[in-house]
C-alpha cells in the first residue's frame, strides 16, 4: 500500500481536511510524519492500540491536554512540552514512565513543516526521557476551530515497590525543596505572545524530570513524602493544594526561593508574581527533615536540579495558610492566583 502513497511536501504543504478523514491522506500523514518522528516497534505494527509488558510494582496513569500559545517558544514547543508535562506527572509519583499516547487535533492549513518540527521534538523528548509513544490519534478540524494545534498525551508508568508518595504523608517539620528557579517557562511563553515583545533571554525550563526523580528516590527513599510539578498556578498553587490536602500550613523564606533576575524583572514589569507563574521543568518535594539534606545534595548533583533549594517547612495550621517571610523583613500569605493572571495597568 505504501508504494501508492505520494511523499508529503513537508516544506511547502499544509494539513487539509482530508488528512483527518481516515483515508489515504491520513495514512500518509501518520506514516510519513508521525511514525518517522516517533519510530518504535510498537507503532511499526500499525494497530489501533499497542500491547505491552508490565513489570512488577503499581501502575500509574495520567493524561493532559496542551493548548499553549504560541506553539513555539524559547526553549521548546508544544510537542516537547506535551511529552515533558505528561512524563513529569508520572514521575511525581516516584514512578518510571514507560509508554505514552499522543492525540492531535490539527486546524486545516497547518503547515507540514511546523508539524514535522513539533513531531520531531516530541520524538526526541520521548527518547531522552526513555519513554515510547506507542499509540495516537489524528483529527483535522476546519479553519478557525482550533488554535493551530492541540495535543493530548497520556502515559503509564510503574512505581517501585515500597514507595507511596502522597499529600497525606506530609508531617509538621517536613522541609519544602524545589529543584530550581521559578517562572522560567511562563515568562518565556509571555515574551513571545503577540503584542508583548519584551527582550529577555529567558528560555523555558521544559524538561522531563524522571531521571532527577529517580536520583532523589535513590537518596531519600520513603523519606520523600510527596512530589508535585508546579505548572499552571506556579509554586503558590501547588503549595496551597498540598496544604489543603495534607491539612498543614507552610512557612516559606522568600530569600531562599531562586528566581532568575530576568524573570523577576519581567514579572515586575507586568505586575505578576513569580510564585504564580508556570514552570514545566521544576518540582517541589516535601521531605522528612532528617532526609532533606541528602535529597538536596542528590538534586544539586543532577543537571536539572543544580539550583535546588530548601525554601521552608511544613507547620501546624488549622487555616492551611502558606505564609512567607519576605526578603524585606515582613510577612505575607502566598495565596492561590485569583482567576487568570492579568497584567495590571499601572
Amino acid at each position, binding site marked *: 500500500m505504501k508504494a501508492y502513497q505520494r511523499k508529503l511536501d513537508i516544506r511547502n504543504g499544509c494539513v487539509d481536511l482530508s488528512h483527518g478523514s481516515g483515508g489515504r491522506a491520513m495514512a500518509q500523514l501518520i506514516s510519513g510524519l508521525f511514525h518517522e518522528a516517533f519510530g518504535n516497534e510498537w507503532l511499526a505494527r500499525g494497530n489501533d492500540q499497542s500491547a505491552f509488558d508490565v513489570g512488577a510494582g503499581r501502575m500509574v496513569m495520567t493524561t493532559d491536554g496542551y493548548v499553549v500559545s504560541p506553539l513555539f517558544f524559547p526553549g521548546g514547543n508544544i510537542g516537547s512540552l506535551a511529552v515533558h508535562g505528561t512524563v513529569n506527572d508520572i514521575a511525581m509519583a516516584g514512578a518510571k514512565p514507560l509508554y505514552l499516547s499522543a492525540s492531535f487535533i490539527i486546524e486545516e492549513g497547518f503547515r507540514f513543516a511546523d508539524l514535522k518540527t513539533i513531531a520531531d521534538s516530541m520524538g526526541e523528548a520521548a527518547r531522552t526521557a526513555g519513554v515510547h509513544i506507542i499509540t495516537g490519534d489524528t483529527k483535522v478540524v476546519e479553519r478557525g476551530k482550533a488554535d493551530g494545534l492541540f495535543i493530548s498525551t497520556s502515559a503509564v508508568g510503574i512505581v517501585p515497590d515500597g514507595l507511596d508518595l502522597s499529600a497525606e504523608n506530609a508531617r509538621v517539620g517536613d522541609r519544602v525543596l524545589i529543584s530550581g528557579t521559578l517562572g522560567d517557562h511562563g515568562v518565556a511563553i509571555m515574551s513571545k505572545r503577540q503584542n508583548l515583545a519584551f527582550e529577555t533571554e529567558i528560555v523555558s525550563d521544559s524538561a522531563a524530570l524522571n531521571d532527577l526523580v529517580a536520583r532523589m528516590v535513590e537518596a531519600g527513599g520513603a523519606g520523600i513524602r510527596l512530589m508535585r510539578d508546579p505548572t499552571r498556578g506556579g509554586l503558590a498553587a501547588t503549595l496551597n493544594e498540598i496544604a489543603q490536602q495534607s491539612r498543614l500550613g507552610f512557612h516559606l523564606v522568600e530569600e531562599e526561593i531562586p528566581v532568575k533576575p530576568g524573570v523577576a524583572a519581567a514579572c515586575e514589569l507586568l505586575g505578576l508574581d513569580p510564585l504564580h507563574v508556570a514552570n514545566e521543568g521544576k518540582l517541589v518535594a516535601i521531605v522528612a527533615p532528617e532526609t532533606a539534606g541528602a535529597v538536596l545534595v542528590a538534586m544539586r548533583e543532577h543537571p536539572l536540579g543544580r539550583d535546588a533549594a530548601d525554601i521552608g517547612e511544613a507547620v501546624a495550621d488549622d*487555616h492551611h495558610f502558606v505564609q512567607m517571610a*519576605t526578603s*524585606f523583613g515582613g*510577612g505575607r*500569605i502566598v495565596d492561590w492566583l*485569583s482567576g487568570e493572571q492579568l497584567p*495590571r495597568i*499601572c
Partner: protein
Amino acid sequence: MKYADEFRDKEIALGLAKTIRAETDPGRPYRFMEFCGGHTHAISRYGLEDMLPDNVRMIHGPGCPVCVLPAGRIDMAIRLAERSEIILCVYGDLMRVPGSQGASLLKAKARGADIRMVYSTIDAIRIAEDNPEREIVFFAIGFETTTPPTAVMIRLAEKKQLSNFSVFCNHVLTPPAMQNILESPDIRNIGRVEIDGFVGPAHVSTIIGTAPYEFFAEEFGKPVVISGFEPLDMMQAILMLVRQVNENRHEVENQYSRAVTRDGNLRAKEEVSDIFELRDQFEWRGLGPVPYSGLKLKRAYARYDAEVRFGMNELCVDDNPACECGAILRGVKKPVDCKLFGTVCTPETPMGSCMVSSEGACAAHWTYGRFRDHQQRRAS
C-alpha cells in the same frame, strides 16, 4: 534586578523601622492613608505592617483606577463591545471587573464580543490600522499617569487619519478624590476617620508634580509625602510623615526626588490639557459622584470620543447595599469589618470595589494579610 533591589534592602529597612519606632510617640496614634493601590499592594506584598509600631496604622485609600470604576461604566463598555462592528481594546485587569448582575468583559468575550487585551495604547492603533472595516474603541482608564499615553494615541490617530478609531474615556484625577475623602457629604452617614497624613503616588506626580497637593495640605492641614512604590520608599515616606506630625507641620514633601519635581512633566501636562477637559462630576465605585474628578475629550476631538460617536448613554448601577466599600475606602472601617469580606466577596467573586483588583484594600488584605486576623483573634 538593578534599580529595584537597591530599594528592597532588608538591612536598610530594619534600620528605618528602628528609627520610626524610636521617633514615634507611643502615646499618640499615627494614621496615614496611602491613596494609591500600588502603595497598598507594596505594603501587603512586602509585609510592611509587621515592621511598623502598633500605633502607626496605614489606611488603604481608594486609589486603584480599576477598583473605582463604577459598574455602570463596565456595563456601558459591554454594550459597546456587543455591537458587531466594534473591537474593544482593554487593559488586562479590566477584564474581570464586575458590571451589574455579575457581568464582566471576560464573560462578554466568552459570549462572542470582540474584546482584545492590549498592553499599550500603540497596540490599539495597530489593531485599527489592521482592521479598517471595523470600529476600534480603546477603553481608556487610569489616573494622571496613563492619561498622557491616551493623548499621544489620539494625536497619532489624527496624524494617521484613522477614521475607525475612538476612545471610551474613564481617566480620573487624584487630588479631587483625596479632597472628597475628607469633606464628602457621605461622611455624615459613615463617620469620619482621623487621618494624620497622606502618602501621595509618585507616578502621578511624575506627571503633575507636587504643586497640586500644596493647596490640599494647606487647606486641610494634612501633611502629604509623595512616595515611590518600592518598600524602602514607603518606609522612608512613613518616617517623613511621622516627623511632620511630631513637628506639627503640614507640608508637601517629596520622597521620590529621583523622578518627581514640583512642576512635573510640562509637555505631558500640555498634551493632556490640549485634548481633555474636566467632567462636572464622575462616579467612583465606593465614593459615589466626585465633582471635577474625571476627564473627557474636548469638543474639538469629539470624533475620537466613543461616547459621542456611538451615542452611549450613562448607566448608573447601585452598589450592593451590604458592601462597606465607601467606609473602607475612607478608612472608617477595615476589610474584616464588612460582613461580605471573605464570605460572598472574594477575589474570585468580588462584590465591591475594594475586592476588584489586586490593589484594592480588601483584595490586598485577602491575598497577603488575612493570616494576621487569625493571629490577632488568637492573641485576644
